[in-house]
Each structure stands twice: as C-alpha cells, then as structure tokens.
C-alpha cells in the first residue's frame, strides 16, 4: 500500500512516531482544503472544467466545494469583480473562518485584466489580501490546479501562530478588517 501523503519529518522508533504538532496539523490542513468557488465569469467555466471528470480537482482533498464561507478554507475568486461586487466579496471573506486563504484566479481577479474600465475593480487585492495569483485569461485548468498546489505549499509551511501574530493583524487592518 502506498502512502497517500508522505509523513512529515519526525522521529521513528519501535512502534511510535513523533513529530511536531505544527507539522501534523499542517499535513491535515494541506490535504483537506475546502474551497469556496466565488466564480463570476469566464474563469468560472474553466473551474467547472477543473472540477469535472477530466481534471478532477477533488484529487487534492478539495472534494467538497463549500458555498457557505463558514466551512470554507480557501476563497477562490474566479472572474471579474466589478466595483458593485467588491463589498460582497469582502463580506464573504470576512465571514470565512480562520485560517483562510485566498487565490485570485485569472487576470481580472488579479489585476482587472483587460477591463481597465470605470466599473471594474482593478484586482481583488484592493479589498482583500491574496495569497496566490494565477495568471491567464482564463487560466487553463492545469494552472488552476498549480495555483491550488501552491496554496497547499503555503498551508503546509504556515506556522500555527501566524494567525495570532501582529503582522497578520496588521495586514488585515490595512484592508479595514478587524
């Protein structure tokens, strides 16, 4: 039987295995990221393809897309965010439980893309902090999966105390989030 995931670094002995709590938690978190697909436009269709049978997004422990922010770990913003939608995105982000990660899929979510117009938010990082940007208009499913794997790396290497740190609180305060 092969391991689904490799065990983290630790001390192995006769009948026991020791590792730090941080690594064990990171391992669990990394492989059970529940995404909240905030799909608005074109990239949402590519996300559908990513979820479909051909690319099978669920392989990475993201079997369950959560449409409520309460049970979601990862906010996947896919598509253009208009200024009218900005406050809603922020509300959804705030209502997510900690720890939370954000991935901006596609040029529009990352920077406004080709829509440098009066009505489009020029990148979601104007309203919420973003962890991973996926370029492309729209990105291919492989790129979306690569973005998720980058998030997995971030999750695996995150310290348990990060969310309590002053830097993190300061980051949120930059965006006006308590």
């Amino acid at each position, binding site marked *: 039987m092969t391991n689904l995931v490799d065990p983290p670094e630790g001390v192995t002995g006769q009948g026991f295995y020791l590792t730090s709590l941080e690594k064990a938690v990171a391992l669990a978190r990394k492989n059970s990221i529940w995404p909240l697909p*905030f*799909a*608005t*436009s*074109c990239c*949402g*269709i*590519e996300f*559908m*393809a990513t979820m*479909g*049978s*051909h690319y099978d997004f669920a392989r990475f422990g993201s079997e369950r897309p959560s*449409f409520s922010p309460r049970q979601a770990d990862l906010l996947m913003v896919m*598509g*253009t*965010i*208009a200024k*009218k*939608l900005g406050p*809603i995105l922020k509300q*959804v982000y705030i209502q997510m439980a900690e720890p939370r990660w954000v991935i901006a899929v596609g040029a529009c979510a990352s920077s406004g893309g*080709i*829509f440098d*117009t*009066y*009505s*489009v938010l020029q990148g979601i990082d104007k309203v919420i902090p973003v962890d991973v940007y996926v370029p492309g*208009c*729209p990105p*291919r499913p492989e790129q979306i999966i690569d973005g998720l794997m980058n998030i997995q790396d971030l999750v695996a290497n995150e310290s348990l105390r990060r969310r309590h740190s002053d830097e993190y609180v300061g980051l949120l305060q930059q965006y006006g989030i308590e």
Partner: protein
Amino acid sequence: MTPDKKTVTVNLGPTHPATHGVFQNIIELDGERIVEAESTVGYIHRAFEKLSEHRPFYQITPITDRLNYCSSPINNIGWHLTVERLLGVQTNRRIDYMRIIIMELARIADHIVCNGILGVDSGAFSGFLYVFQQRESIYEIYEEICGSRLTTNIGRIGGFERDFSDVAIAKLRHFLEEFPKVLSEFEALFDRNRIFMDRTIGVGALSAERALAYGFTGPNLRATGVDYDCRVAEPYSSYTDFEFDIPIGQNGDTYDRYLVRNQEMWQSLSLIRQALDALPSDDYHVHVPEFYLPPKAQVATVMEALIYHFKVVMGEIPVPKGTVYSAVEGANGELGYYLISDGGRSPYRLHFRRPCFIYYQAFPEMVKGALLSDAVMTMSSLNLIAGELDA
C-alpha cells in the same frame, strides 16, 4: 418583527450556488410558493460598450469573447460578420463553411453547459460529468484551430488566421463519431427520467405571446413554439446551403427548453457533418490587407506586408461611415451588434444586443406562483451567462 407578515424573504444570490453567476433574486415566499421576485443585476458590469469605443475594430474580437464565454466563437464570428457587412467584404465558401463548423461546435459546447448544469441543479451530477468530458474534446479542437480553450479570439475580419490543420479535421471527425454516443446516453439518462420530468414539466412556463413581448429569442423562444431562428430568418454566412431543422417546443417550460437544446445539438452535429463533407478548397481568408494582419514572417521580409501591418495596428485605415445592425443566432438567442461607425479606427458606438439581459427580466413573471426549487430550475434552464447579461 411583524407577526402579521405572512411572507418570508429569501435572498438568492449574489453568491448563491444555484445562480451560477452573480445575480441577486430577492424572493418573497408564502410557504413554499413564490409571491414575488425581484432581480438585481450588474454585479460584473465590465463596460464592454465603453471599452469598444476605445478599441480598434480588430481588437474588439477579444472583448466579444467574454460576452457569452460558453460559446465565444459565435460572438467572435458575429462581430466579424458585422464588420464585414460594414466594409462590404464578401467571404468565399470555404471561410463560410469553416465558420459554420466553428459556430455549431460552439453551440454544442454552450448547450452542454446549460443542460449539464440543469441536470446538476435537479440533483443528477453524473450527466454533467459525461458531457463535460466531451466538452474537453471540443476545447481540443478549438486549441488546434486557434490555440485557446475558452476565450478563443477565433478568426479575423475577413476569414481565419490559419487554416484547419489535418489534426483539427481528424479531431472533428473523431468528435462527430464520439459525441452522438454520449449525447444519446445523456438523453437516455434524462429524457424520460421520472424525477427530472417532475421537476421540469410545467415549471417556469411562458406562453409564446408573453415570450415575444419580452423579446425572447433563441432556444427559450423556440421552446414556446415560435420557430424564429436567425439562421433561417436572416441567413448569414452560408446557412442556406445546408439542410437542418429548427426544433420547437410547445409549452415553453423548462422541460421543453431542455428538449429543444438537446435537439439543437443533434442539428448542429448534422450541420458540422454536412459542412465538413462539403468543405471546398480555397483560401482561408479573403484579400483585405487593410484589415487582415499579414503573416508575421512576411512583415519582416515584404515591404507591403510591413506597411499594412503598420496601418492595421496604428488604425490608419479609412472605414466607411454608417450604421449597421447585424445579428447572429447565438447559443442562447439573437446576438446583435449595433455598430455606428464615424469613419474612425474604433466604433463611434457599439451596442450589443445580449439575449441573456433580455431573458432575465421575464424571470419574476416565470417563477411567480412556483415553488422555490422551481425557481432554481427555471434560472438554470434560461442559460443565463453573467458576462453577457451584465456586459
């Protein structure tokens, strides 16, 4: 809290899983029945029309991609047809046939999304998985032809940027063989499925008169029994060369819309087959050097090519003044381009007639008196694409 109030307000959207996009419906419920619905749109308004006024003609094609992104090639080619009509460019048969193949492929891709998602909304996920596998092979054909999957930017004003390769033709042939099997399977799964029928028959029905009053076109109008189809009523490209039927429904309910879409996929398959068999050999673009970018290799070596490349890119080309309305049968209705040209490099005004925008205002009437779960099915069967709706 008002104890006398009998209705409950339920908010469907903007980030509701049932809306497949960002729409907001504020629904007043009396028990399970919808008393009143109110829709709010504009959550991804991207100012396409303003943007088009600042882009040269050939750069508007990528913008049209993002209108109805489930079937971008139809939007692209519709835009090319509009500009060609303004310029008076006549394309040859090969280009027309190639365009028809691409457009019908796009129609299939769009109907796959709509009907697959309708299945998901009624609780049958497996149909979605079957047909989306086939959608990947459509994407592969797109990639072979234009290099992109979803936002295709396919074709140019005056033809295509490159010819169909042998691989593309082979993939098309393979698709024509494989897809009918999957579509039959899909139909077998849904057409006479008791649960699906119970959830869709009589749900979100609209009479032909009301549908016309609301300006419905496309499959949603045909489901009510009106056989209006731009491809027949105002034939563009070369639709007159082919035999195909316009499937129509009777009751205009969700089930009829589903059936019409399924039948249209069969018709599209037959159209692709006919066009592919009769594909004449000719140039894949007409000679309009003022608008068609020369091949990159020639730009570096041939003087004329360099001049025209410069002129096209810098927009120093005289365009006729005039107003033109040109419509194509988009995957979910009449997709119109109202173009006012003042002779400049970009349109003076470009207005898109977006079928989704026009459907959606009928939604409150369609769901009035229906159950809450019917509203989800109705919305799904209208094939609302947020990008097109909000423009």
